[in-house]
C-alpha cells in the first residue's frame, strides 16, 4: 500500500487529496484545503500537506517528505498568461490561441497581422508570462514575421517568446530578437490546414517549469519531492485525454468547469467525420481541446458575464418570471463579495441563470457549426470548427457544478444554442450528464502521468449521474 498526495494551488484555495494505492487500485482517503498564501505559496501547500498526513501545523519539511509521493499543480496568481500573435485570424492566430489554451494557459490578448505601436503598448502593460509568436506556413509568409520580430525587439517586453511560425525565417527571427529570450520550435501550421500544436505546447510547459515556477517560489517543493508541477488546467486536460484509452465507453467526452473567474471546456472527440455532404473548411481541430473564457465566470467575472450574456440572461429571466432588477441586485452583491452564496429560492435561480449563461457561451465558442449550402443537386453542409455531436458524456466539475446541478443547467443552454443564427451548432446530441462530486478531476489529473489506469478509473468511479441519456432532435 502506497500513500499518494495530490495538491492543487489555486488562486484562492490550496486543495489537496490523500489517496492510497493498493493492488493497482487508487482510492481517496481524505481531502483538505487552506486559503492560498499569496505571498509565499509554499506555506499554504505545507499546511494542506500536514493536514492530509495528520501532522501538526508546524510540521517541518523533513517530517513531511518521505511519508507519501507528492504531485501538484498550480494556477496561483492568475495562472499562466499567454499573449498570442498570429497572421490570419482564422488560421495561425486561431491555432496560437488553441495551443496556448491546450497548454493550460490563459490567452490574455491576441494580435493578427502587423503589431502596431498600440499593440505593443498593450503588451507591455499586460506583461504576459509568455508570448506565443506564430504566422505563415513553412516556406510561406516572411514579411509580417520579420516585421513583428523587429517590433518585439524594440519593445520593453521581458518575457520569453516562443516562436512557432514559418520555419524559413526562424533563424532570422531569433537573430533579430537577440536581446530577448527566444525559444524556437516547430511551426503551428506547417501547411495550410495542418495542425501541429504539440511542439509549442511542450515548450510552453518547459517555460512554465523553468520560469514561472521559479518566479513563484515553488522550486522548493520541486526540490524536496522531486515532482514537477503542471498548470492546473493542463492536469485536467491530461485526465480528459487519458480516459478514453482506458475506458472505451467514454471515448467521446466533455468536461466543463464553471468557476468564479473563468469557464473551462475540455473535449475529447474526433473533430470532423468526412462524408459526401459535409465539407470541412479551415482547420481540422485536434481531438483533445481546451478553451477557456475569461469573460465567463460566476463571481470575479460576473461583471463581464453581464455584458457578454445579456441576451441569454434577459430571455431566461423572462421565462422564469423574475424581474431584471433582482438580477441586478444579485450581481452587485456577488461582485462585492465573491464568496457570497445564494440564500433564497430566487437567488438560487439567479445563480442557475448565470451558470447557464457561462455554459451557453462556452459551448458557442468551443463547438463548430454547419452552414447549409443549397446546390442544385441538394443540400451540402460546410463545417467550420469542431464537431461535438458524438459526445456521450458531459462531466460538470469545479466549485459550482461539483456541488450539484439539475440537468436543465446544461440541457437548456445546449438546446437554445442548437440553431444559432443561420448556423447549426455541432453540439452533443445524446449525452449523459455527470458531476465530479468530490471535485477530484484536477487532483487526479496530477496523477495521470504516473498512474494513468488508476487515476482514470477513480475519476470515473467518483462521478455521479445527473440524468439518464436523453435523445435530442435537431
Amino acid at each position: 500500500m502506497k500513500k499518494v498526495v495530490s495538491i492543487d494551488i489555486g488562486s484562492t484555495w490550496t486543495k489537496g487529496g490523500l489517496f492510497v494505492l493498493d493492488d493497482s487500485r487508487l482510492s481517496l482517503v481524505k481531502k483538505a484545503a487552506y486559503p492560498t498564501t499569496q505571498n509565499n505559496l509554499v506555506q499554504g501547500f505545507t499546511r494542506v500537506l500536514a493536514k492530509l498526513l495528520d501532522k501538526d501545523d508546524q510540521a517541518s519539511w523533513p517530517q513531511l517528505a518521505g511519508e507519501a509521493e507528492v504531485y501538484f499543480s498550480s494556477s496561483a496568481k492568475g495562472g499562466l498568461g499567454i499573449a498570442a500573435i498570429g497572421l490570419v485570424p482564422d488560421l495561425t492566430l486561431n491555432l496560437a490561441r488553441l495551443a496556448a489554451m491546450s497548454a493550460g494557459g490563459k490567452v490574455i490578448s491576441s494580435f493578427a497581422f502587423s503589431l502596431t505601436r498600440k499593440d505593443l503598448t498593450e503588451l507591455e502593460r499586460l506583461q504576459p508570462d509568455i508570448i506565443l509568436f506564430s504566422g505563415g506556413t513553412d516556406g510561406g509568409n516572411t514579411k509580417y514575421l520579420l516585421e513583428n520580430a523587429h517590433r518585439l525587439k524594440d519593445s520593453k517586453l521581458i518575457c520569453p517568446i516562443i516562436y512557432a511560425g514559418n520555419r524559413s525565417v526562424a533563424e532570422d527571427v531569433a537573430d533579430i530578437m537577440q536581446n530577448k529570450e527566444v525559444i524556437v520550435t516547430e511551426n503551428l501550421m506547417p501547411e495550410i490546414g495542418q495542425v501541429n500544436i504539440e511542439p509549442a505546447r511542450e515548450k510552453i510547459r518547459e517555460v512554465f517549469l523553468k520560469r514561472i515556477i521559479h518566479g513563484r517560489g515553488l522550486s522548493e517543493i520541486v526540490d524536496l519531492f522531486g515532482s514537477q508541477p503542471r498548470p492546473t488546467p493542463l492536469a485536467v486536460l491530461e485526465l480528459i485525454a487519458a480516459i478514453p484509452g482506458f475506458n472505451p465507453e467514454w471515448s467521446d467526452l466533455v468536461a466543463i468547469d464553471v468557476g468564479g473567474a473563468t469557464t473551462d471546456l475540455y473535449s475529447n472527440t474526433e473533430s470532423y467525420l468526412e462524408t459526401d455532404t459535409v465539407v470541412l473548411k479551415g482547420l481540422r481541430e485536434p481531438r483533445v481541446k481546451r478553451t477557456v473564457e475569461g469573460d465567463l465566470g460566476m463571481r470575479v467575472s460576473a461583471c463581464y458575464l453581464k455584458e457578454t450574456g445579456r441576451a441569454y440572461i434577459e430571455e431566461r429571466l423572462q421565462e422564469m418570471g423574475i424581474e431584471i432588477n433582482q438580477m441586478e441586485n444579485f450581481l452587485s452583491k456577488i461582485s462585492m463579495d465573491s464568496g457570497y452564496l445564494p440564500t433564497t429560492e430566487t437567488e438560487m435561480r439567479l445563480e442557475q441563470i448565470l451558470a447557464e449563461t457561462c455554459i451557453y457561451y462556452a459551448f458557442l465558442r468551443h463547438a463548430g457549426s454547419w452552414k447549409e449550402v443549397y446546390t442544385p443537386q441538394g443540400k451540402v453542409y460546410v463545417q467550420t470548427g469542431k464537431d461535438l455531436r458524438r459526445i456521450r458524456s458531459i462531466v460538470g466539475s469545479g466549485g459550482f457544478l461539483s456541488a450539484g446541478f439539475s440537468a436543465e443547467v446544461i440541457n437548456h443552454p445546449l438546446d437554445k444554442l442548437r440553431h444559432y443564427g443561420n448556423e447549426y451548432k455541432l453540439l452533443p446530441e445524446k449525452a449523459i450528464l455527470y458531476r465530479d462530486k468530490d471535485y477530484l478531476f484536477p487532483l487526479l489529473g496530477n496523477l495521470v502521468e504516473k498512474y494513468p489506469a488508476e487515476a482514470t478509473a477513480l475519476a470515473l468511479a467518483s462521478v455521479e449521474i445527473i440524468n439518464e441519456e436523453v435523445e435530442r432532435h435537431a
Partner: protein
Amino acid sequence: MSDKDTIILGVIGADCHSVGNKILELFFTSEGFKVVNLGVMVSQQEFVDTAIETNAKAILVSSLYGHGEIDCQGLRELCIEKGVDPIILYAGGNLVVGKTPFSVVEEKFKKMGFDRVFPPDVDLKQVANLLRKDIQEKFGQARQKEEERSL
C-alpha cells in the same frame, strides 16, 4: 519547405465539381509547383487568407457549375484590400454559360482583374508554361533581390 513557387487551387463558390480539381493538383505538382489545394466550395476569403499565410504567387480559380462570374467578382479587390495584390489570378473551367462566345467571357474576367482566363479544353502544359513566365515577370526581380541578400 523548398524554393518551389507556391500556387493555390480551388473551386470557387458552392461548386462541388471535384474531378478537374484533383487533376489540376496532380498536374501542377508534377510540373514542379508547390500546390496548396483548397478543394471544392472555396470562398474568396479562404483563397486570400491562404495566400497571405503561404506567400503564394498565384491563385488558380476553377468554376464548373455556371455561376463563376458572380462568385469571382471582387476577388481582385479583396486581394488588394488584404495586401496580396501582386498575386497572379487565373480562372478556368466552364465559365461560359449558354451561347456566349468565349472571348466575351474572357474579357469580362479580365476586367474583374484576372490575368488569364481559360476554356475547359485548354492544354494544361501550355498553362504551366504561361504561369512560369508570369511568375518570372511579376516576381523575378524581387526574387533576385532576395537571393542577393541571402548570399
